[in-house]
């Protein structure tokens, strides 16, 4: 029996010791601090780029308004006459991965865009399955494939830069989209406005919708990824300047179960949560369910353009916003490649508009016939294979 009590004492001591440690835990964002300590910026923080992106949000894009994948923001055109070539063309694409619904929707959209063009006789795709090493060798093998143009969606920025440089040296036009590389050898780099604008759209919405002093929980997927760090950086700046109380910044790994547990934990710990900011919407519905199951009203929430979230938003009349990282950007590299091979000018940096779904235009994007994780901003509704290929 003596031992039993030793264990009980030890367990109590363990709990007490763990409590004592809580003050120097870096990810504890200090619920006792009313100003909401959100920590410091990551190494990716770039104030000039942040300001540039925030400016882009209100700028008018050039190009057809009903085809945002062909639009461009303040383009600096470059001459491509030296790449002019007669068809038919063989397009080659080195894809970082198709390992999440966003990339799956995007890739299908890209394939459908390719199918629109008879002058593309061959579309060769190598999937790097999320591995830098594989993508490096993929790009090398495409460089010797006699491609008319090479499209690259890099897995990571710095590691893939030399491989892209190598592809450029073969003289074939190289087009980079989504994540960037740190060389300017590609003919064009295509991307939506970017993560800062995405993060700011959601944070500004919460500042408007949540009463002063309200408790905001920020949910992030994981640290250390540039495209996600920028989203949080912009939101952090806005929250720091507001009177909102950021009671927690937590990582969900993009997992619904973990998200639901975290939100539930915070509802228990804080008594109430007045706003949810997310750096990606894949688990937004899980966050909403945590409030439902706790029997409290769903507060203003930032999601994304996944159908499950949009549907829930409409059905329950939530106060919500969806910044988007539009999947229609997957159409643009194909269009760019054909323009380049036709000798037409393209922008050196092709910045696509990045629309936001609000309660005003929500109805245009909700489509309950599509799968829950379909991204509404795919720009794919007019393509011949729609909707079956996306289901």
């Amino acid at each position, binding site marked *: 029996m003596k031992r039993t009590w030793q264990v009980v004492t030890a367990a109590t001591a363990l709990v007490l010791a763990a409590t004592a440690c809580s003050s120097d835990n870096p990810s504890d964002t200090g619920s006792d601090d009313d100003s909401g300590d959100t920590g410091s910026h990551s190494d990716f923080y770039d104030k000039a780029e942040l300001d540039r992106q925030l400016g882009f949000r209100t700028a008018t894009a050039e190009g057809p308004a009903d085809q945002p994948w062909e639009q461009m923001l303040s383009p600096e055109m470059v001459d491509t006459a030296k790449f002019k070539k007669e068809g038919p063309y063989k397009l080659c694409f080195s894809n970082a991965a198709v390992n999440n619904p966003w990339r799956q929707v995007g890739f299908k959209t890209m394939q459908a865009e390719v199918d629109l063009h008879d002058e593309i006789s061959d579309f060769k795709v190598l999937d790097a399955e999320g591995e830098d090493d594989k993508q490096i060798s993929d790009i090398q093998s495409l460089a010797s494939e006699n491609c008319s143009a090479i499209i690259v969606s890099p897995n990571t920025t710095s590691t893939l830069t030399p491989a892209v440089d190598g592809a450029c040296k073969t003289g074939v036009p190289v087009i980079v989209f989504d994540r960037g590389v740190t060389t300017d050898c590609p003919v064009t780099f295509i991307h939506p406005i970017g993560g800062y604008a995405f993060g700011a759209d959601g944070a500004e919405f919460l500042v408007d919708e949540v009463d002063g002093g309200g408790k905001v929980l920020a949910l992030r997927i994981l640290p250390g990824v540039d495209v996600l760090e920028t989203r949080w950086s912009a939101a952090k700046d806005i929250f720091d300047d507001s009177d909102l109380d950021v009671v927690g910044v937590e990582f969900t790994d993009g997992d619904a179960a973990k998200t639901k547990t975290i939100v539930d934990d915070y509802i228990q710990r804080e008594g109430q949560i007045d706003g949810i900011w997310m750096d990606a919407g894949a688990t937004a519905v899980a966050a909403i369910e945590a409030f439902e199951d706790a029997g409290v009203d769903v507060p203003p929430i930032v999601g994304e353009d996944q159908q499950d979230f949009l549907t829930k938003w409409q059905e329950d009349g939530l106060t919500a916003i969806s910044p988007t990282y539009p999947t229609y950007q997957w159409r643009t590299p194909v269009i760019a490649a054909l323009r380049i091979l036709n000798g037409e000018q393209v922008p050196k940096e092709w910045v696509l508009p990045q629309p936001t779904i609000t309660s005003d235009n929500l109805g245009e994007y909700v489509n309950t016939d599509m799968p*829950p994780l379909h991204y509404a901003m795919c720009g794919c509704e007019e393509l011949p294979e729609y909707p079956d290929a996306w289901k």
Partner: protein
Amino acid sequence: MKRLAPGTLPVFAVLAILLVALAFAGPAYEHPQGYIALLKRAAPLMILALGQYFVIVTGGFDLSVGSLVTAEVVIAARLLDGNEDRTWPVLLLLIGFGALVGLVNGLISTVLEVPSFITTLGMLLILEGAVFLWTDGAPRGALTESFRQWGRMGFEDVPWIGQLPYSVLILLALGTAAALFMRTGMGRLVLAVGDNDTSVRLAGGRVRTIRTLAFVVSGISAAVAAILLGGFSGVSAQVGGGLEFEAITAVVLGGVALGGGRGSVVAAMAGALTLKALFSLLNLLGISGALESTVQGVIIVAAVAYAAADTGWRDRVLRSKARSTAQPGPPAPDVVTTS
């Protein structure tokens, strides 16, 4: 009242302390609803601990349950794809798939005599890879409401506690069945297999069958846990990550001896509840979830160290007793080694 099985008292003591501490730590535990919610969240892990108990007490390990849970949820989403009328067939199929995986684990471990640690590690990797291959890392399809209700809903407006979750009822039913089974002759045979399989074999007991069935029970419990977890939080390709270690930690915390032969199934489930209660307490105290795996690591080492020390201590006491009663004469032989 039957005496508690040896080694199980600490877990109930720790659990009681944690449950009382929760009431002081957060407003959510001022009402019974808070504890029901805790039980609801803990139910999948407690059911996994039940399955894991049978494997561990017969002398094995089942490391495959985490990725089996993930596979089950992903399969369910793909097959249901939002069609309500497929719910029941898919539920049955999931249970069947869990039993099949358990059967394969069991047969490979017993007939081919591959150590279960390796068999189930292999199964973990096989299922993980198969799920990734099948889904490209992003699950498709959707679970139906009638599928999700089991992990999410319950009987509403129950006096005093509010909602009585279905998952808690399922947990109680399975827990009671397992506890009653362990009191039967067959249940004692299960313990005996882990304790000394040679003597069971010599006495005519079917050791391989019992061990294989333990894996089948574990596979079915993983299927039930998957149904509850998928119901609780929806489709996710990470839902089962790390669950095998949580289940083993829970069983060890419940005082079940690794290597088999000793421990109670109720205590193993109490171990799972203790683990969840501890995580909830840490959360209420403002400690990051990142510490969960560290706490788990400390528990698993501490619990096994405690069990080893406890066994050694009892050995010495019994030996010295034997010596004193046998005086005068030669020292008594080493009789007490079974636990």
